[in-house]
């Protein structure tokens, strides 16, 4: 869930990677390398990005936004409401050949 003005999860990680790549300070490169020190950490972050992509493609993120926007908890009825609200938007979404 993205909140304006703050970065969370994947966004934080991506912003961090961007800033470390764009930085011209060699010490910044070194410190970034220290922070993302192991391959395990790197793979975990990549897995988080992939999961975030899948959650967006499969509308799980859209449902999370819907719950947050309407201050609701997940349930059968709220999911049905979400589907009703998103039906027109979803079927109007173009899909290529």
């Amino acid at each position, binding site marked *: 869930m*993205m909140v*304006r*003005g703050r970065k969370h999860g*994947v*966004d934080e990680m*991506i*912003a961090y990677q961007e*800033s470390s790549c764009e930085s*011209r*300070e*060699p010490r910044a490169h070194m410190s970034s390398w220290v922070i993302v020190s192991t391959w395990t950490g790197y793979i975990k972050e990549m897995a988080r*990005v992939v999961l*975030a*992509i*899948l*959650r*967006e*493609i*499969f*509308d*799980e*993120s*859209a*449902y999370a*936004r*819907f719950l*947050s*926007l309407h201050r609701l908890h*997940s*349930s*059968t009825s*709220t*999911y*049905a409401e*979400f*589907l009703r609200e998103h*039906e*027109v*938007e*979803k*079927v*109007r*979404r*173009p*899909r*290529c*050949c």
Partner: protein
Amino acid sequence: MVVIGAWGPMHKLLRVLIWVAVAALGALAVSTIALDRGEQINAMWLVVAAFCSYALGYRFYSKFIAAKVLALDPQRATPAERLDNGRDFVPTNKWVVFGHHFAAIAGPGPLVGPVLAAQFGYLPGTLWILAGAVLGGCVQDFVILLFSIRRDGKSLTEMAKEEIGRVGGAVAYISVISIVVILLGATALIVVNALKSSPWGTFTIAMTIPIALLMGLYLRRIRPAKVLETSLIGFVLVLVAIWGGQWVSQNAWTARAFTFTAPTLAILIIVYGFAASAMPVWLLLGPRDYLSTFVKLGTIAVLATGIVIFRPTLHMPALTSFIDGSGPVFAGKIFPFGFIIIACGAVSGFHSLISSGTTPKLIRRESEARMVGYGAMMAESLVAIMAMIAACVLQPGTYFAISSPAGIVGQAPEAAAATISSWGFPVTAAGMHSLAQAVGEQTLFNRTGGAPAFAVGMANIFSNSLGGQAVMALWYHFAIMFEALFILTILDAGTRVGRFMIQDALGHVWKPLGRTSWYPSTLATSAMIVAAWGWFLWQGVKDPLGGINSLWPLFGIANQLLATVALCVATTIIIKMGKIRYGAVTLVPLVWLVSVTFTASWNKIFNPNPRIGFLAHAQQLAASAASGHEVSRLIVNDRLDALVTGLLVSMVGLILLQSLVEWARVLSGRKAPAVKEVPFVASHFATEEQG
């Protein structure tokens, strides 16, 4: 600081050396695939050429466009930020938007087009995919995305209306609905050709309907919103259905129950399209969409891994004699038809609908449009390269036996094998029979449409290692299921999109017809759109030349005419931005597409060869001794096809003319060069990052 001083130039030199090496490797790969004659080459050369071309295109060309032509401004707030409503407009991480955009643009098109174009050999299609994508398709997707971002996420139709004029908007609307109808008819035909007389494939695809219904109920009642989990369960059930299909095909009673002729399958698909359009989205369309996306992403990943690991050899020659237009898969010379058949992997007008649809409403910063717009199209182009490899790893004789219609090579296996062997591509009826048995089919002759050839190619790549020949049938039916499942998703979703478009238009005539929740309107407009694409499908099924011969070029023409509209809009905006000196960026692909599509349209209507020209074919039928209702209908179909092509090309000619007038007025100073961008607002994200 001393360290920086020493490291800086070294770092720069290293980067220069790396890019020189990439360029040299790319040149080596392209020259190997272009100049090598007489011996088979490894598929990895195509992959290396593709990666190097994309890397150079992205690093240098897209950067040039971003900096000089579009002047991407990370300080400028995007509509996702300014209009953030937590629904359509949501600032989203660039990788997530990239995945979302790629999932929307990648369909069966980049798989089918290259497989059909492989009749020219692997070289022309590969070069067109690489050059077309880097210089045309990626550019179109990128600039339309950015222009839509700067207009609050407006659609291509709205931008055409605002920047070119009312005619532009109307033509874009009619082009979109035409392309949707032709696309649905052409892709439905691919499913019919892949499933006819194939109990295994038909059973597997039929099973995806109850699986989707089960997923819909599971999602709605048992585990609300757990789409990934549900899709995984659905995927496992589909694999069970593929495995079970083998039993169905081997049992006499069940095999008979699931063996259908092409006309019967066409009727079933038309009925399915209507039902899916009228049924609640959550019950069938939604779950099937999720399932097909899951299968699609998985299959593309598996195919890419397979090609890289197994590095298959290409058996198809670089060029075949069919570049002269005498090809059996589809008729027509390499120019213009080679550039029409491969649309989605090189330039696809349809992408401009997505670049001006959901994606511009998600982009967080302008600078990210480059990676999403240009980058996702590169990924799509890579899928097309993989499809070309899958087709070209087959022995050419096998490829032509599968992909040639009975009307060209003959109905009997022996006659077909003799005809194909006489072209210099040896194949035997016994060899094809063994191959059909290995993949669990009764026959592989005359399986036009591209999907069966792709499936055999994919099965061939994997059967040489993973499980050997024993699991070739499973790989084949997995590939068939993948394409059919995805195409059926496009059919039901596309039918709904078309339905909404018709309802939007009819709502201007009588308001209740525009209400999407009014059931009489829903049923009537669903019937209208299904009848429209069903007509193309039926015509294709009854065509003795395999249907795909007429329909796929028609689809390619419609798709690339839409790209012409998109590039007209883009060029107009660039001129109005006062950047005529960079106009060639969109003008060159526009000129190329105009020459290709207009030549192809002329040929499809007026070419004297009955295999190419609709009117010549109608004339041949009229002059033949055969008569009766069927022949009369074929003649009417041909004339109607010619009319549809003529109307499409005339409308695009009109929009081109109106664009030229608009350019002349702006460049001569008779009209102020004002674009309809929303005013600049500083981005919160940019200031936050600076802080």
